[in-house]
């Protein structure tokens, strides 16, 4: 068991910030801490790496109480990721990511190699970014650097304190998708603090809801959504709870991998022929070498606009990432007016297609709509 909290408490005078908290945080999963402000979620997280010293009880990491750790050594062995403002403005991106390995006195050569690995992991081009400074990056890029920095020393445990809170909603969804893709690869034990229930449902394997310093419910994301333990949890989930069930389902598990692709060299006439054979009204234009998505071509456009190459006929398409939720897909489908969306991974490679009908079928299949009706 990586992290165990045993009757952990934090008091300020007579006030309990965290009260008698006992929970075992599952290994290699994302555990969300959520609750209203002042509920103790951040305090709980910061007690784990000793940024806030606990008052009573115990916290064990790999079976050893944190009291037996030197707090500085402890923190160097736990990843810590906060909002993008936590990047050091006087360090280059390279130096930012290298912070903890340098504190641990790694060899420069090993550090360099590790930094390159991490840049690849968070999908930033090392040649373009390593020598830049945080102020030269966009919010989303900075947050990717923040994630890379937190993972630099390859810690088993990573603490994340509202890491995506400062990013605008559209980019936040993207970076959440990328983060899930990364987690699939690295399988860390992650404690993630957020106040955003959408984020909690989307990212969390399990969700711990706190209120006034106490644990209200600690369960899998599915159970929290379907069986909220108290009225507070119901409030937190909001009135559109029914739809939040869709937020538990990932695009990657529901997309189809059969779709029609075309390359630029194909003539419009041949393209029309291919679509007819595949019984489809649209196809995706991809780069023949690496399958990267370039655009979408519809049969209607080919017939109507008689251009000589597919390049000129293709349109920019809305897209979605594999780890996005069906709820997000549905929103995007509505706003784009398409009946299907291409699914592309972090490197822009076309990996599947998600159809509106699939999502509608899911809604029908899930019990959540019925529960919602019962309540009404």
């Amino acid at each position, binding site marked *: 068991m990586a992290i165990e909290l045993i009757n952990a408490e934090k008091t300020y005078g007579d006030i309990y910030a965290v009260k008698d908290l006992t929970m075992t945080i599952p290994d290699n999963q994302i555990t969300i801490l959520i609750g209203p402000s002042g509920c103790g979620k951040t305090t709980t997280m910061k007690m784990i790496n000793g940024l806030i010293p606990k008052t009573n009880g115990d916290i064990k990491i790999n079976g050893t109480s944190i009291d037996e750790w030197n707090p500085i050594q402890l923190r160097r062995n736990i990843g810590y990721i906060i909002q993008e403002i936590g990047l050091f403005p*006087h360090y280059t991106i390279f130096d930012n990511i290298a912070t903890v390995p340098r504190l641990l006195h790694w060899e420069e050569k090993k550090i360099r190699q590790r930094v390159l690995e991490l840049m690849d992991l968070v999908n930033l081009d090392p040649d373009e970014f390593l020598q830049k400074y945080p102020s030269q990056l966009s919010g989303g890029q900075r947050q990717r650097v923040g994630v890379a920095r937190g993972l630099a020393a390859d810690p088993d445990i990573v603490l994340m304190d509202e890491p995506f809170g400062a990013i605008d909603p559209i980019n936040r969804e993207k970076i959440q998708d990328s983060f899930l893709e990364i987690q699939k690869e690295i399988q860390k034990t992650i404690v993630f603090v957020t106040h955003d229930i959408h984020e909690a449902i989307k990212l969390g394997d399990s969700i711990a809801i706190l209120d006034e310093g106490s644990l209200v419910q600690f369960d899998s994301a599915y159970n929290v959504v379907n069986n909220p333990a108290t009225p507070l949890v119901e409030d937190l989930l909001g009135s559109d709870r029914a739809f939040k069930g869709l937020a538990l389902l990932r695009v990657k598990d529901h997309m189809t991998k059969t779709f029609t692709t075309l390359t630029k060299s194909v003539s419009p006439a041949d393209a029309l022929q291919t679509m007819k054979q595949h019984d489809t009204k649209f196809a995706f234009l991809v780069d023949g070498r690496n399958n990267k998505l370039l655009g979408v071509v519809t049969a209607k456009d080919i017939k109507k606009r008689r251009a000589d190459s597919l390049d000129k006929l293709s349109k920019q398409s809305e897209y979605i990432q594999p780890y996005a939720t069906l709820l997000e897909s549905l929103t995007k489908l509505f706003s784009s007016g398409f009946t299907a969306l291409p699914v592309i991974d972090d490197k822009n490679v076309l990996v599947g297609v998600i159809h509106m009908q699939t999502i509608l079928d899911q809604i029908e299949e899930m019990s959540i709509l019925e529960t919602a009706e019962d309540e009404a």
Partner: protein
Amino acid sequence: MGIFSFMIQNPERVMEKLYEHIIIFALSWVTAVIIGLAVSIIISRPWVKTRVSDAVISITSASQSIPSIAVIAVVFLFTGIGMLPAVIALFLYSLVPIIFNAASAFRTIDPALKEAGKGMGMSNSQILWKMEVPVILPQLFSGVRTAATINIGTTTIASAVGAGGLGDLIFIGLRFINTSQIFAGAFPAAVLAIIVDVLLSRAEKRITSNGILMDIEKHSQAV
């Protein structure tokens, strides 16, 4: 070139006064930089009450409006004439902008930044030297540069308490309305002040991280 005549006829005297000037400046300024920065670091540590740094900042802020000659005069009352009272007065007067700038700057550091460092396992001294100081270098330099400029300027006045330095030439020149002698004191003093400021500004650019300089650039465009 009547105005240069005193310099041309008495080069060794001008050099001697310039030398005295530099000694007085260097002694008082370097001590003020070391002690001023040390004090600012100490009062900005988490274990020192905010009230203490509040008080220091308001006192130094108000003291910046006190004319330098008033400080020289008061020190003169205690120690009499000579180089020592001048050095003491200039030291005290240089402390003011250094501490004011440094102590205020330490407060502007985003707490999230410090916490990020702590959360990654930096020790307190690593947080101070690897994060806080590099991030506020421009403000530290601004105090240190202001102190240097004021110090060199005030050193000319310190000649009134018998400290020596280029002020001697100006004072005597003023008394006898000898313009070339005034110039022989004023010109090297002005050049010295400008050179020291340019050197410090070069040093600042060299030492400060490009990331911080870019931040400032970005900000000055934004405002």
